[in-house]
């Protein structure tokens, strides 16, 4: 291995970069998933009562909403309360009432929280079919946009990873080929005196695995260091961002990177043995 120092370094470094990209992609996907579920669980349904709805239609609406499956909380917000909230948001100085011409254009509304995020969409669809509601909103869009974003991140990072992974495998194969060339005489003699194929091959597998593992250890070092730093800083400055910090999950991510490094190293060796070593 000392013989091909620069090649070994290049293949381990490429392996590291490939695995860092993989790791970043994994962490982003994990965090977006967590963000999505946090958002989903916070999503409330706002159902605006139609202006035309008469007292009869409004009768017992609260109970009917509460009896829907999965509903955790129902709060009635009258148009007056809504206007107060709006005033608060615009500030005391603004003359909102005057601007609106003394009329309150806001409808009465019900704010409904669900106990499980996946119940939000079905419940919102159910409410839309009720004539008493003019409009039903449940924060649609945000969740879908986040999912679309994660999908893109996955596609781009897998493409990048595929490319880098191939490069890493190729570099490892080339490094191992150099070792083979350097050991040509020994290999020829090994064959002549009756070494089995596996006896001749296994040192090359060891070298490939070692290169892969070195790259993986580098990648895990860089990633875990910077991610832990990110978590630490995010707690202070980005408190609203729920970063994944579960040790079990992170250990699985980093363990997965180590295994991937080993597998890519072995693949490189296989390529080299298949192409160059007739044993």
């Amino acid at each position: 291995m000392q013989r091909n120092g620069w090649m070994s370094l290049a293949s381990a470094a490429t392996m590291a970069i490939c695995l860092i990209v993989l790791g970043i992609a994994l962490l982003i996907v994990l965090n977006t998933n967590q963000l999505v579920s946090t958002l989903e669980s916070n999503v409330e349904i706002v159902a605006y009562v139609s202006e035309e709805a008469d007292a009869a239609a409004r009768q017992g609406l609260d109970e009917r909403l509460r009896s829907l499956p999965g509903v955790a909380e129902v709060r009635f917000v009258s148009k007056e309360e809504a206007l107060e909230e709006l005033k608060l948001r615009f500030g005391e100085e603004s003359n909102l009432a005057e601007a609106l011409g003394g009329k309150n254009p806001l409808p009465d509304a019900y704010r409904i929280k669900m106990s499980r995020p996946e119940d939000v969409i079905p419940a919102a669809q159910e409410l839309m079919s009720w004539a008493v509601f003019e409009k039903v909103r449940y924060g649609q869009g945000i969740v879908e946009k986040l999912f679309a974003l994660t999908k893109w991140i996955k596609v781009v990072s897998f493409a990048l990873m595929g490319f880098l992974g191939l490069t890493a495998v190729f570099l490892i194969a080339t490094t191992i080929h150099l070792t083979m060339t350097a050991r040509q005489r020994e290999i020829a003699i090994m064959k002549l005196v009756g070494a089995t194929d596996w006896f001749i091959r296994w040192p090359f597998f060891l070298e490939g695995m070692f290169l892969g593992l070195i790259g993986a250890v580098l990648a895990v070092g860089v990633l875990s260091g910077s991610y832990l730093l990110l978590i630490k800083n995010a707690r202070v400055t980005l408190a609203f961002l729920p970063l994944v910090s579960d040790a079990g999950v992170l250990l699985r991510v980093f363990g997965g990177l180590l295994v991937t490094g080993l597998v890519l190293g072995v693949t490189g060796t296989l390529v080299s043995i298949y192409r160059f070593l007739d044993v």
Partner: protein
Amino acid sequence: MIQMYNVSKVYPPGIRALIDVTLRIEKGEFVFLVGASGAGKTSFIKLLLREELPTRGQIFVAGKSLVRMKRSEIPYLRRNVGVIFQDFRLLPNYTVFENVAFALRVVETPSRDIPRRVEEVLALVGLEGKERLLPDQLSGGEQQRVGIARAVVNRPSILLADEPTGNLDADTSWEIMKVLSEINKRGTTIIMATHAKDIVDRMRRRVIAIENGRVVRDEKRGLYDSNEA
């Protein structure tokens, strides 16, 4: 021990190295393989090592067909068939001891047995006290002795020698022949391809002469040339 039936070897694009060779070599024989360069002697040796397959015909070593032999069985054949070369083929960075031990290691001999077995075989070829020298520090004859030691340390029943004295002067050649005779006396079959007329003529062993790929002569106590008999 060794049987060949109608063995032919043709290399692309149609060079016929061996043509219809049928012969039998018994256990413990000492056989000279003679003939001009390119007559087919090296092909003969490569076939017996199963480095190559015959184009036609069958070869048996110790009752096993080399033609039907599986790839995974080849290493075990080679542990039973040692080989030495004109150019010795030693590992230059390994000492005498390590060069011989290498052959034991690659067949996974227990390490505690290795020193004893290396010492034994170095004594057999007359290299006691040279264990720690590198091949460069040895004479040609001594290097060939290392080659022989490496070839026989796994106790093969057959030893193939491809022009083992080709790079050595006459006196040194005789030293090597003594070592080979000694190994032969212990029961190892030896097949030696050679151009060395004086050696063949003085040893009076079985001579198989090959010309243009065909066996043209096979004599029990033969000479290098047929016309002198």
